[in-house]
């Protein structure tokens, strides 16, 4: 309990100090709410629009989690394949690198044409931006496998699949977990950007749609509320990934053992 408090207290104190300074600043300089609403006003607006915002949060979370899941699956499989063959790696890795350079805003309208409006397109957008960190970290982990252990597996005539499953994949886990942590935040950004062009509006509108429609209405308070909630989705996803990572690594890896 004391340890949790020690960990949580500093960021909470910083957050409270920042919010207080923000609130005071808005009041002292009498800033108009379309320019910079106070945290209190944002909170009040979020409370008034809670059903719309929570429904939006759920939709965005679904897209982000779906896209993230896809990114992890494709990233780990592709990273493992590239890690298993130098030739594949030389041929495909530079192309995989292009994924990181893709300007999502530019291809999001194409996703609508290819996949239609709604969840499929937003999940695809989330997946595209989240896939590279997972792929790169998997590949890094595979490359870092101890050659001595590889030799032991070879002496015992272990097949490729057995070597991957029992040696390379577990050995890559710390690196994959790190990649997944980065990808978790990116997936939410990808989902929200995807929603800008492909999300359904209405009662169940995702946060991306809430943000753009609130911008048109000059409701900066709601824009902040929606952005804050999308950050919460990212934070939540990051927390879940970190928790799962800890569960997988706690018994043997230095990073998790230290946390214990």
């Amino acid at each position, binding site marked *: 309990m004391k340890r949790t408090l020690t960990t949580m207290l500093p960021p909470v104190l910083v957050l409270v100090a920042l919010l207080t300074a923000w609130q005071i600043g808005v009041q002292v300089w009498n800033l*108009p*709410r*379309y*320019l910079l609403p106070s945290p209190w006003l944002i909170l009040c607006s979020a409370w008034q629009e809670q059903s719309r915002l929570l429904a939006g949060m759920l939709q965005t979370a679904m897209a982000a989690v779906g896209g993230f899941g896809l990114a992890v699956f494709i990233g780990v499989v592709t990273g493992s394949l590239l890690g298993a063959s130098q030739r594949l790696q030389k041929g495909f890795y530079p192309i995989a690198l292009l994924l990181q350079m893709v300007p999502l805003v530019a291809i999001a*309208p194409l996703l*609508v*044409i290819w996949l239609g*409006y*709604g969840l499929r397109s937003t999940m695809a957008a989330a997946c595209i931006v989240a896939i590279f960190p997972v792929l790169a970290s998997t590949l890094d982990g595979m490359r870092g496998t101890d050659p001595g252990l590889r030799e032991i597996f070879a002496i015992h005539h272990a097949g490729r699949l057995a070597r991957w499953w029992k040696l390379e994949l577990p050995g890559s886990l710390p690196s994959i977990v790190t990649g997944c942590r980065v990808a978790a935040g990116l997936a939410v950004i990808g989902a929200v950007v995807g929603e*800008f*062009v*492909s*999300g*359904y*509006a*209405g009662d169940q*509108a995702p946060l991306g*749609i809430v943000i*753009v*429609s*609130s*911008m*048109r*209405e*000059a*409701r*900066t308070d709601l824009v902040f509320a929606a952005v804050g909630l999308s950050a919460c989705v990212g934070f939540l996803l990051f927390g879940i990934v970190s928790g799962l990572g800890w569960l997988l690594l706690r018994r043997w890896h230095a990073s998790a053992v230290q946390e214990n």
Partner: protein
Amino acid sequence: MKPIRWILALVTCLMVATCNDPTSAPGLVQIRLQLNWVPEPEFGGIYAAEFDGLFREAGLEVEIIKDPGGAAVQQMIAQGVCDAGIVSGDQLLQFREQGGDLVAIYSVFDHTPYGIMVHAAGAPETLKEVWQGTGILAIESGLPIWKFVDATYGASTRKQVPYGGAIAQFLSDPTLAQQCFVTSEPPLMDIQKVPVKVFSVSDIGFDPYSAVVAIRRDGMKPEVQKKFVEAMQKGWQRYMANPAQYNPRIAALNPAMAVEAMNLGAKRMQPLLLTPWTAEHGMGSMNPARWQAMIDVLHSAGVIKTRPDPAVLMQWPLASTKP
């Protein structure tokens, strides 16, 4: 020279380069005018005034900035990012409720060009049937005009998706209905030889000023406003008299819209700009009673909570000569 001095010299050069605008002429009043869309016939008169040097003749140096790229023009004006901008009257009203204080000095359209476009094959008979139909409806959610339609016919039963201004999705989905400016997308469809049916929102009793030139209340001296409005008026007169003369140059600024489509769009603008009101009071002038009607409609639809006096939302800089 030490690296730090190189960096300082480079920064100084950059600062000097960004501070001095080589194109600005001495003695001219600078106005940055932010459009809310890409160059199209709906801004034809403004470009005509620019191309023909009407702004310069009036002692103004007007920089026309196209497409804000998703940023809210009303906020850009209020913050001084630009001196004037094109916004819709209903957004101006909504902005006022959020603490903004802008005033409209010129209206491009006397009647709103907003409409809903559907494929002609099997098209419904009325806007109500479109609104309550099935399929996808691509609109800019949050715009007061669609909130009014919602309040009139009930929330649309169609699946609403964002409108991005593109026509690719419309072309590929025969059930899709999308918002349009009757002067913009329908002419593009004509060029593509895709038959469409357009339902104008003004036909169902809501006819806001949908493209007004707005400024900060104290952002422009009255004599500058007068010169600015007069130059725009002359520009619009010239453009409407002969749009084909100006459209190739506007199309060069917006290659996505062909000259042919711009000519068609300009033709469709005639009844929206050249009305009995503008004939009597001058192009660009606004009727306070129309502002009042817009305020009443949006108030009863629940879009706005207060009912300001139209006089705080609009002014006519040529008041001494025209209405």
